[in-house]
């Protein structure tokens, strides 16, 4: 059964640490048979910020016409959604927060309109992966980003327990992650593990 992976490169800096980490995970996933991978670079995806207008609670869609039109459908179609963000000022990069906030349309669909996000037969068969890098070495540097990440996955029908995390601190300047002792092998292992878990779920 083919597996569709949708990935968001959330850093405004191209090919920096968080995108490199993402590329390692995606290469491992894409190296497995029957896996298709699509990477969207958020700083080029034309996704505007949520207006907070709450129109989606009535319309079941966003009133803004932008890159989210395409991304919305891809989020529903994918079996695995990978989100990568550097930590800026103790949180997600603003570009990533914009995507996460625009998931409000899914929250309205789920909780206000009481409509399904994915067809019943696909529930519990989707996985999430959150990848992050931070310049600071504090072990709590990712803590403030995680509630928003969980919220994003929750509203797109990926359970808390189905989110995999790989977060690497202490990597600041471009390329620093290449010198990290375990990041690359952990990323490759994660990519393979997630694909094999997806295969099990989809076959069930």
């Amino acid at each position, binding site marked *: 059964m083919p597996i569709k992976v949708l990935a968001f490169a959330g*850093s*405004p*800096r191209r090919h*920096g640490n968080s995108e490199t980490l993402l590329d390692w995970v995606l290469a491992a996933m894409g190296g497995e048979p029957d896996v298709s991978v699509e990477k969207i670079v958020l*700083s080029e995806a034309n996704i505007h*910020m*949520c*207006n*907070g*207008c709450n129109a989606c609670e009535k319309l079941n869609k966003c009133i803004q016409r932008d890159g989210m039109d395409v991304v919305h459908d891809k989020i529903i179609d994918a079996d695995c959604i990978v989100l990568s963000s*550097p930590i*800026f*000022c*103790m*949180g*997600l*990069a*603003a*570009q990533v*927060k*914009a995507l*996460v*906030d625009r*998931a*409000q349309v899914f929250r309205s669909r789920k909780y206000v309109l009481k409509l399904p996000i994915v067809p019943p037969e696909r529930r519990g068969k989707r996985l999430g992966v959150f990848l992050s890098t931070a310049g600071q070495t504090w072990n709590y540097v990712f*803590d*403030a*980003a*995680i*509630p*928003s990440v*969980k*919220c*994003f996955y929750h*509203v797109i029908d990926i359970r808390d327990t189905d989110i995999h995390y790989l977060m690497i601190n202490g990597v600041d*300047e*471009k390329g620093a992650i290449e010198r990290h002792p375990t990041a690359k092998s952990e990323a490759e292992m994660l990519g393979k593990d997630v694909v094999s878990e997806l295969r099990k779920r989809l076959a069930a």
Partner: protein
Amino acid sequence: MAVTVLGISGSPHRHGNTETLLDKFLEGAHEAGAAVEKVVLRDLLYSPCRGCNACHKTGDCIIQDDAIGLYEKILAADCIAVASPIYTMGITAELKGFIDRGQYLWARKFILKTLYFTDEHIKRHKGIFVSTAGLGWDRVFDGAFPVITALFNSVGFEYYDNIIANDMDQFGGIRQHPTALSEAYEKGQKVARVLAHLRETT
């Protein structure tokens, strides 16, 4: 010269719960003699941080837009009240976009060492976080606090207080909340008086 209080509204939704709470705080500060100004982020034009790290070398941001002017305003104020509703367990992308742009001040402080705030300066500059959330969870603001702390640290302000109210969806909006608006007003009065007193005791 009067104590200056700058309110920054980070909600895309004009005159909603969070901005109303901010307005009450500013009203209280004004009543207590402060010179008050409110900036609405939606009215400004600024891009998010590009993560280019040019500021790590120069101490300046390569993007010269409204974000820089607002940082100058913050640095000139005695008190800032930074307001954002909670969206998906964090501050809005608008406010996060603005806060990320403060990287050049962080670079001045920690890389170039051209900017330093004394303890005395920090004591005389008070930062307040104003927020509302639809959900009633106790921990709904937890993702926002560290980001606000990072902002206040960058600009040399003491994280003085929170004016926060959750469970807006159940209350049917801030105006139906039993205490939030009066608390905001009182906190506005209080901080203006505390700062005025600190000035007199120089």
